[in-house]
């Protein structure tokens, strides 16, 4: 079998923080009534159904609240087909939709100080720690394209976008991370 390739093959930009293509990542879309999806989420990711706008777990096995009837599940790339099968089995007989979207998306990780400032340059979301606490899964747009992101900590965030706009997203995040362009509004930066 051919090797899985992420959109940008693990590209890295080192600015005042690090922008990194996170590599091939397993992702499933699961749609249906959240109250009935628990078994499938458990089977596919070992996590519980997240509360509104929250994410349970992370890239290695996680479930994110995408809309009132949609979840985005994360797992290892190679485990995605099996996880999909497990989710389908758990929901047999119910009304639901499950799809493997691993190859439809790209994932970037941001590591370093000043993540809130960087994203605030590009996105209309409110990045105040009160409005966007760590562990909250926020869907919005970054620059011109739809994106979802969450902060694992003040120094680490993950951005999800469509694979077709991965280069645009990487360029945008890299440009915003250029040394000397720190804002220092939400958090004092290192330099």
């Amino acid at each position: 079998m051919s090797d899985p390739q992420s959109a940008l093959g693990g590209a890295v930009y080192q600015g005042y923080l690090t922008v990194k293509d996170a590599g091939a990542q397993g992702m499933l879309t699961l749609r249906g009534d959240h109250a009935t999806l628990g078994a499938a989420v458990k089977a596919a990711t070992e996590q519980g159904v997240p509360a509104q706008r929250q994410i349970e777990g992370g890239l290695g096995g996680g479930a994110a609240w995408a809309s009132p009837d949609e979840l985005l599940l994360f797992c290892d790339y190679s485990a995605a087909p099996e996880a999909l099968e497990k989710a389908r089995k758990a929901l047999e007989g119910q009304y639901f939709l499950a799809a493997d979207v691993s190859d439809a998306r790209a994932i970037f990780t941001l590591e370093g100080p000043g993540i809130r400032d960087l994203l605030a340059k590009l996105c209309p979301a409110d990045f105040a720690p009160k409005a966007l606490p760590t562990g909250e899964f926020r869907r919005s747009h970054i620059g011109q394209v739809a994106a979802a992101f969450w902060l694992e900590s003040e120094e680490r965030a993950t951005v999800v976008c469509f694979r077709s706009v991965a280069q645009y997203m990487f360029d945008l995040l890299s440009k915003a991370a250029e040394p000397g362009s720190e804002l220092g509004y939400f958090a004092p930066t290192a330099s």
Partner: protein
Amino acid sequence: MLKFTCPYCGIEASETELHAGGEAHLKRYGPGSADEEFEGYLFLRKNPKGVHLERWRHAMGCGKWFLAARHTSTLEVFGTYPAQTHEPPAEILEKIRAKYPEALK
């Protein structure tokens, strides 16, 4: 800047995250209706300078349609409510009438 709180995901979304969907609470006139009614349903829309009830979609977000009451020139927002609603909730109407008694007549 125009901001609506999406009733489905609770996010205070700015205008660039939303897509406007025109007038809310249209009554559909289908087969068997009079020509005038059908024309009205298809083409005739309110365009007030004042309080307006509108459809909006949280396009860059949860993707759901919702309804909103706002003032078209001051951009004051009276409230948002789910799309599965046939008329604006009483509390939103109260808010509107308290400030603009002549609106929505």
